[in-house]
């Protein structure tokens, strides 16, 4: 078919690019996870599972678990902070809705590094807060500093989907809820929350995925005790020069995330099917 | 074309603009058009009429070149068009959604086809102006489609197609999105334009009044087949089957059995009628009579008669529909015009027993 050939011709360059420069490298990543290094440190392909075993041994397993833990904490905090803000803007924003949501998004156009650096500037030993309090409180190099940095870094990804879901929701539903349930909390629990749950889930995925692999926050705001899997991986590639191990760590992380992605997509598809029915 | 061909072509009295030979179109398992044989003469206003899904739009798209027939051949001005892509065919289409180019102004929209053909600038300007005059949109050259009303967009679409002087103009329910009054107005205008320009029009619609009003010939389609093809009068007065009779205008369809040269209805009435050859005694048929052909009570000599009780009277301004029950489940609608002399609501009341009659030749026996 003429149209078919034309369309296929058009999509080929982009598709090939993605195939060769994205899919293939992922394959290489997977392949090298099974490899090892020789004495010179060169990576060699193999079929060993050593790297995977090592990834789960007592030295490194805590790091993996910590990454998941931090990421989960980040998600929870993002919801706790992001939902009320999204709610206020969507429901009470009125004419200023667009301006307010733009203001929420604006800081996220500052480079992530600079934003994280800003927290160092604020909370560091020489930072503003310590200056104002005229004390020397240790804010940084703590787990909460890292989590805080993560929250600050990814909050917008939680607020936007929730805001979109709230904004799309028919206010009449809340009114009906008020009449039916009488109290604000019940209305929220039985009407608003279920309705905006897809938005919350979307936000969760958008925050959790990058947060697990983040290394900037841990590196800049924390110390070795706060290192996440991202820092580990980065170390393997730059300091320890153990690429196969780094690749294995990356693969493990990716596999872990993939499971959640698939579950989320299944749930979303089921939602869509039920909504259509 | 070779010289002999050219001469033969010129010698033909009414050249064929479009010819379908055994055309069939299948989408996967679904057959949209089945064994289409049709010839449309040059200069005709030809309509494809039918309900949604009957295949009329698919047929049009095959002429335009957007779809290829699964089987069969299509000929444009005598030439087969299988291998010819839409941009090389000498046809132009007016789309139901107008499909104007939003980023170009009216003038550039209309000039688009000419520019593709590398027509010189000055000639383009003249022809665009003429086309806009034809559709009564002079002065709106610089407007953008977004600023125009539905009716105006329709005119631009028409001008954009006509300016190229195609052999055939294809129109896909072009008036569907307009309100009733505008639609009626545009119908008259379109007919006038077609007469003036002399181009063959292939018009697709589901509105039977529209088709009857504008066409030289109509093909009534259903389920991918042509049920009947003929002039508006033929289609209306002599429907070939129950579908056409029911689709075109309003018709009473009375079920009955052929007996002694008449149709015996369930009500007991025996209606003399002109029998077609394929209806032997005992066949189950429908007797089709148009409401406006039925007289109430004051019948003429020789009319076919039935009796019944008035069950409903519907006043619709110009006419009054009187619904008479001949037997349980068998109802006939008769139409009386509300002229100055006759006021139906004075004459008949619900519950009255009346006689209905029609001339024998106004009823058709259909299988």
């Amino acid at each position, binding site marked *: 078919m003429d149209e078919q050939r034309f369309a296929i011709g058009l999509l080929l360059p982009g598709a090939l690019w993605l195939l060769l420069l994205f899919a293939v490298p992922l394959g290489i990543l997977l392949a090298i996870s099974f490899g090892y290094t020789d004495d010179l440190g060169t990576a060699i392909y193999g079929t060993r599972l050593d790297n995977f075993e090592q990834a789960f041994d007592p030295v490194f397993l805590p790091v993996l678990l910590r990454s998941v833990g931090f990421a989960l904490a980040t998600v929870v905090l993002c919801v706790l902070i992001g939902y009320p803000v999204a709610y206020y803007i969507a429901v009470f924003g009125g004419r200023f809705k667009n301006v307010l949501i733009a203001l929420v998004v604006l800081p996220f156009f500052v480079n992530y590094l600079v934003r994280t650096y800003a927290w160092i*500037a604020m909370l560091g030993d020489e930072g503003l807060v310590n*200056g104002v309090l005229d004390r020397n409180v240790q804010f940084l190099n703590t787990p909460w500093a890292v989590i805080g940095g993560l929250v600050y870094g990814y909050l917008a990804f939680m607020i936007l989907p929730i805001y979109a879901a709230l904004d799309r929701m028919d206010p009449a539903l809340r009114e009906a809820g008020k009449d039916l349930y009488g109290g604000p909390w019940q209305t929220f629990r039985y009407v608003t929350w279920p309705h905006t749950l897809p938005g919350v889930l979307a936000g969760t995925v958008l925050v959790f*995925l990058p947060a697990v692999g983040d290394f900037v926050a841990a590196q800049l705001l924390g110390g070795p005790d706060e290192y996440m899997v991202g820092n580990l991986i980065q170390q393997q590639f730059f300091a320890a020069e153990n690429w196969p191990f780094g*690749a294995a760590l990356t693969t493990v992380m990716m596999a872990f995330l993939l499971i959640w992605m698939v579950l989320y997509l299944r749930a979303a598809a089921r939602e869509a099917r039920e909504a259509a029915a | 074309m070779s010289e002999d061909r050219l001469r033969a072509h010129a010698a033909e009295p009414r050249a064929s603009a479009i010819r379908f030979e055994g055309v069939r179109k299948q989408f996967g398992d679904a057959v949209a058009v089945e064994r289409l044989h049709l010839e449309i003469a040059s200069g005709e206003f030809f309509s494809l009429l039918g309900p949604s899904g009957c295949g009329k739009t698919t047929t049009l798209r095959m002429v335009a070149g957007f779809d290829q027939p699964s089987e069969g051949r299509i000929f444009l001005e005598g030439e087969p068009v299988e291998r010819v892509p839409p941009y090389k065919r000498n046809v132009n289409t007016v789309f*139901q959604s107008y499909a104007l180019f939003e980023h170009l102004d009216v003038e550039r929209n209309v000039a688009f086809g000419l520019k593709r053909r590398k027509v010189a600038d000055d000639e383009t300007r003249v022809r665009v102006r003429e086309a806009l005059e034809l559709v009564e949109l002079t002065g709106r050259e610089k407007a953008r489609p977004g600023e125009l009303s539905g009716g105006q967009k329709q005119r631009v679409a028409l001008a954009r197609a006509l300016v190229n002087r195609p052999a055939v103009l294809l129109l896909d329910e072009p008036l569907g999105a307009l309100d009733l009054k505008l639609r009626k107005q545009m119908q008259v205008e379109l007919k006038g334009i077609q007469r003036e320009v002399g181009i063959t029009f292939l018009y697709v619609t589901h509105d039977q009044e529209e088709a009857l009003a504008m066409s030289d010939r109509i093909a009534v389609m259903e389920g991918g087949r042509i049920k009947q093809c003929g002039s508006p009068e033929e289609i209306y007065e002599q429907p070939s089957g129950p579908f056409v009779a029911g689709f075109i205008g309003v018709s009473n369809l009375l079920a009955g059995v052929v007996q002694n040269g008449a149709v015996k209805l369930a009500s007991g009435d025996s209606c003399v009628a002109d029998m077609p050859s394929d209806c032997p005694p005992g066949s189950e048929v429908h007797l089709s009579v148009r409401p406006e052909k039925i007289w109430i009570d004051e019948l003429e000599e020789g009319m076919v008669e039935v009796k019944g009780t008035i069950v409903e009277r519907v006043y619709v301004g110009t006419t009054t529909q009187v619904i008479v029950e001949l037997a349980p489940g068998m109802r006939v609608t008769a139409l009386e015009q509300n002229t100055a002399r006759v006021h139906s609501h004075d004459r008949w009341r619900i519950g009255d027993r009346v006689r209905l009659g029609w001339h024998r030749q106004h009823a058709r026996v259909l299988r």
Partner: protein
Amino acid sequence: MSTTETRPGTPGPAADAEAGARPAPPPRDFDRPRFLKVFTGVFFLVLFAPIALVVLFSFNSSRSLQNFEGFSLRWYERFFENEALRDSLIASIEIALLTMVVATALGTLLAYGLVRARVRFSGALNVLLLVPLVTPEIVAGVSALLLFTQVGLELSLTTIVLAHITFSISYVTVVVRARLASLNPEVENAAMDLGATRLQTFRLITLPALWPAIVAAGLLVFALSFDDFVMSFFTTGESPQPLPVRIWSAIRFGVTPTINAIGTFMLTVSVITIGLAIALPRLLGRRESGLGVLLGRENA
């Protein structure tokens, strides 16, 4: 809110009730969002405080992060006088421009092909398209690094550009595809009906109709590339390095006010770019804003 005001001359509430008026419902918490208002206010404060700090102190005449001693542009001078930093800035801009051009072109064509072609592998293509969007940057960065070293390509600006284009294509395709889906497909048929070949139709009719989406996507890609750190970090060569990588090294070494200046500068660039992405489509004569185009109608 139910305060009964009595205008002179009108009967009081009692009379109203008698006249059959309903009593006003008691005000509920949602109608007076005091908590939410305060919360949001504090939120914005905390959100902007660090950024305000960075911007403010980029103009500080002293090194201190605690006292603002006076207005000065010295840190900006330091920034622009530093040869390595200047090179980095130029490198970042070059990378972003190249990425923008190539990714936009490839992404647009991919979007068109995906929407118009009805092939069996479009499902797989869809996945291929969406995976980069959900892949954590570290994974993409590591795999890009592996690819380049395995192929024997030396790390340089080129490798950075290649990596950036790879993750940018998907953004463009998603934005353009949403816009394409909202276009009337009959318009392309109309163009062909009037004599335009497929290529002409694409050039004269489809592309202009897609233009707002393409511009918005392109600018988005520019901003993403200019700000990118992780991908660049894994695929950069020795020198020049893109600005964010330099910032990283600088921060590792300790806090210096020059970073404030760089940060503020980058913020300005990003804001201007996104502002253009939103405003340009409107300025170019289209009626929709870039924001609407970027957010697309996908989720509608």
